């Protein structure tokens, strides 16, 4: 598979792949990095937002 890198498109077989995940109340994040001889040449991230923005009000009674 070709990967877009700072050196141009490269076959992933030539690169070291690192992946990670962060999962908490606010987000689910996955990231992938490709390294070439100790140099980071590609990093992508995918964040899924979990926390919403909420405005609240109450109904007045009389």
């Amino acid at each position, binding site marked *: 598979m070709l990967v877009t890198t700072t050196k141009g498109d490269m076959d992933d077989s030539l690169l070291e792949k690192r992946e990670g995940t962060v999962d908490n109340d606010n987000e689910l994040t996955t990231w992938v990095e490709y390294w070439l001889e100790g140099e980071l040449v590609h990093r992508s991230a995918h964040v899924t937002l979990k926390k919403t923005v909420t405005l609240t009000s109450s*109904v007045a009674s009389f």
Partner: protein
Amino acid sequence: MSELMLGEHQLGTATLVSRTSLTSPTTDTLKAALYLASATKDASTTVYNTTGEVSGTGYTAGGVTVTAATAPTSTNASATAGVAFFTPTASLVYTTVTLSTAFDCVLIYNFTQSLKAISVHTFGSQTITAGTFTLTMPSNTTTTALLRLATT
């Protein structure tokens, strides 16, 4: 809150009741800009500006257009309790960018209405190198929608 009461944001699909025309309703264009972790963006942010916005290869100041194909929806749980909610209908995708300085915030704002801020969302600090940054929206439900206005 006051901007909602004033009807300053026309989200989602066009409705017959529009600020500009009753016969040719229009919707507003929303955009999403990324901000550096060092920037201060919060509920006090009232308008989009470039202060603290990310910069880098492949990123255009102002960010990307938000797909908002579905109008806000509301449900009433009782005579006095209900929720109006809205979520963009597609992920925000910043394709083939290099953003070397850490960022942790997206500002969704109304491009049509004087760049007025709608909401600020934070996440864990990120950098992108010759890659793609994708922000996926939560499900558009009463409890998980990105924007909720609730009465209790």
